[in-house]
């Protein structure tokens, strides 16, 4: 009985594979976040066809702030509400030089400065299901219930992060993350989902890359620590 339970648990916790490709363009080689400087990660929401998912932005912010004392992240919701209506989908600056337009208002500049913001990270993109096939049928009767069939679907993530230096008002670079994965759902009495966590993996890869971008010293220290 316990063996069956273990097999079932193992099947449930199985995940399908996802491939992630990260590209980085760094315009300035001398980026290094200092103690007391803070980062805000914001999602682009101006496109008519898609919307950068708020949970992806939260996920990237969590990855950035995790396992280090240096990078402090201001939450997107808190920042956008405090700066309302200057970072709404229709009013947000699209290019770094557009920041000058809103910073002419002393109260806006003062509010951003109050957060000790050094870097603004804009993330644009989304995750979508590109194709799906198969079918699963479930039935219930006097003798019991069960499902039979097989389903599969592909998901693709395409995100680009632009990193701005708020103090110098310049664009420091871009990081793009492309991820793809296929999920499977075989059903033999019980459906067993083998889910490819495409968005989650894109988030983790992009978050880790932004972390390295802002704090390259951390990698040097970790490598030095590892070589001892």
């Amino acid at each position, binding site marked *: 009985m316990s063996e069956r339970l273990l097999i079932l648990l193992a099947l449930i916790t199985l995940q399908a594979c996802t491939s992630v490709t990260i590209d980085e363009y760094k315009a300035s080689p001398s980026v290094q976040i200092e103690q007391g400087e803070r980062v805000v990660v914001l999602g682009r*929401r101006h496109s008519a*066809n*898609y*919307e950068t*998912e*708020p*949970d992806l932005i939260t996920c990237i912010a969590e990855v950035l702030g995790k396992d280090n004392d240096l990078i402090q992240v201001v939450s997107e919701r808190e920042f956008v*509400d*405090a*700066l*309302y*209506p*200057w970072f*709404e*989908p*229709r*009013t947000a600056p699209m290019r770094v030089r557009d920041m000058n337009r809103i910073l002419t*208002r002393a*109260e*806006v500049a003062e*509010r951003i400065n109050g957060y000790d913001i050094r870097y603004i990270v804009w993330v644009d993109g*989304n995750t*979508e299901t590109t194709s799906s096939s198969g079918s699963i049928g479930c039935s219930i009767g006097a003798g019991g219930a069960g499902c039979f069939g097989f389903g599969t679907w592909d998901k693709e993530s395409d995100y680009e992060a632009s990193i701005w230096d708020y103090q110098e008002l310049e664009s420091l670079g871009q990081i793009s993350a492309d991820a793809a994965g296929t999920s499977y759902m075989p059903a033999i009495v019980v459906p067993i989902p083998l889910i490819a966590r495409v968005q989650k993996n894109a988030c983790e890869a992009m978050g880790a890359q932004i972390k390295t971008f802002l704090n390259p010293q951390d990698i040097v220290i970790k490598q030095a620590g590892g070589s001892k």
Partner: protein
Amino acid sequence: MMTIKRTVVLLLLAGLWGCTNNLTVVGDFPPPLIHTLPKSIGVLYDDDFRNYIYTEKSEDRSKWIINNGNAQVTLFNRVLPVLFNHVEEVGQIPSLDAPAGTDLVLHPKVIEFQYSVPRETRFKVYEVWIKYNLSLYDNQGELIADWIVTAYGKTPTAFMQSNEEAMNAAVLVALRDLGANLSLGTPRVPEIKAWLQNHSASAQQASLEG
């Protein structure tokens, strides 16, 4: 026999009601970070505006009943006290016989409400468009400006999020867009800009002569 029939009818009605997406929009809005205009304003929320309910009448679409009245009044009550130095609610448009106690009076009206759900488009977003007609009067009831403001909001579908929660989020984004338009756009409406300039100049002139 009669009781069984009644029960069946009630169950059918309950089933039909279950197919209807019934939403009362709930949410809060942040105060805008803007300059305050040195003028007082009265705002007239008529019953149509205060109790605004959109009911989908098309038989080809899923049934939606969206009560947006309270949320849009909340939005106006959040933005106007920051945009003007004093705000009060009024019960009617002022006239020569019954002038308002404020410099201006605003009368907002909803003239159009549209939405789309993921089932109708190939995009996995809920979208909402609301068109408002804003009429601004001076304290004697003379029309200063009459302009249209559009509000647009969308929200992605999310796992474990109900239709109502997603639509609520889309309406709130649209109302935030309206708030942004109202906060930044009102002083830029040409007729209002001219009125403000004339009245600040005449006020300065009067104070110099006084």
